[in-house]
């Protein structure tokens, strides 16, 4: 785990935001994790980014709270975050990893519509975070492999982000020159 102090702060603030049902704060916290996740590419940092972003979406969608199993899910998530905070304080990386995995397991133990919706939230969170890491300058394939998403998913998601395709620094060769290269190949 890289930048433990930063991750500890993020998890503490995450717990606080969950209790206050502050989805905006959670999204902001998730964005703060992405710089470290991009440079370190450490699986634990990436897992924290995905979990915090997923929680922001889950908390944002108030309708989930009406589904069977919500209460148990909520209690377990808060408790697992508490455990993860303790693990970082005790420098117990193994336990932290187990905690982050447990959050995913908590989802798989759900049933009915809530399970389907929350699984979908986690999947989309992986694609969102992959897109963010790609936006930071890491290649698409490298990013896809880090997040366990396919290039098919990442390409279509990232393709819709002007913050990736319309960045001036992407322009390396004049488009006319590139067209000329392509046309010449087909002569």
């Amino acid at each position: 785990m890289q930048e433990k102090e930063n991750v500890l702060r993020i998890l503490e603030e995450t717990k606080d935001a969950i209790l206050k049902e502050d989805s905006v704060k959670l999204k902001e916290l998730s964005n703060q994790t992405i710089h470290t996740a991009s440079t370190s590419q450490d699986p634990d940092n990436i897992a924290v980014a995905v979990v915090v972003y997923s929680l922001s979406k889950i908390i944002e969608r108030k309708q989930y709270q009406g589904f069977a199993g919500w209460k148990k899910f909520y209690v377990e998530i808060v408790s697992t975050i508490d455990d993860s905070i303790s693990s970082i304080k005790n420098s117990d990386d193994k336990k932290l990893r187990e905690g982050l995995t447990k959050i995913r397991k908590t989802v798989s133990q759900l049933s009915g519509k809530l399970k389907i919706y929350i699984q979908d939230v986690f999947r989309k969170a992986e694609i969102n975070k992959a897109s963010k890491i790609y936006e930071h300058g890491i290649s698409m394939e490298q990013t896809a492999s880090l997040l366990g998403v396919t290039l098919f998913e990442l390409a279509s998601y990232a393709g819709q982000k002007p913050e990736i395709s319309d960045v001036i620094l992407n322009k390396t060769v004049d488009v006319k020159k590139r067209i000329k290269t392509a046309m010449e190949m087909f002569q």
Partner: protein
Amino acid sequence: MKFEKAIIFDAGTIINFAMNGLLEEFRGLKKIFNGKFLITKEVKIEVVDKPLSIKKFMLEALKIKELLDEKILEMPSDIGVDENLITKMTDEIRDHANSIFYTRGEAIQIIASGESSCIALSKILTEKNITNVIAVDERTIRVLFEKPENLESLLGKKLHAHIQAKTEHFKEFKGYKFIRSAELIYVAYKKGIVKLKNNNFQILDALLYALKFNGCAISDEEISEIEKLNKV
């Protein structure tokens, strides 16, 4: 080797054609191309092998596999290039590229094997005097090899960190040519391969934006420039 030209495809470009239902246009391009369309085994893993096990993308994977069966796309071994040599060079290129940019004393891992394998194959073909270009839609590898100083700036800006770059290695990235699916579809359009019938401007615009929205790193400004070029 009895051919003089080749286009080496990265995964994203093929995926883009497949996702947009443009594989007939892809076949059309191959028909008028006096050379080979190539993919490495590392790219095949990304466009065929992996998606074949995922129901959501199985159909696209099967369609791409058909391109290989029809020899529209060929593997390096089909043209007598040693796969082991590509693997060895791929590892070297990837490891080298991943030790160029540093932040807080740590090397940033920027590229993976599939992308590196395209560079390796391009290098091998160039040494054999075969004119080649790499078709790549994602931006990192293209920026790294065409203007690495831009990638240095992008990393620094996005990571809000000071980036240390081994700039003395930048010159090693020179000598590769890149095109994107956008330029390929422009060729298809100009050569009458695109069969859609409508207002000309609309077709080209629709094609370019469809490719952009499925991962081709092209800006709105560049699309406008291509469209202006079409009117000349």
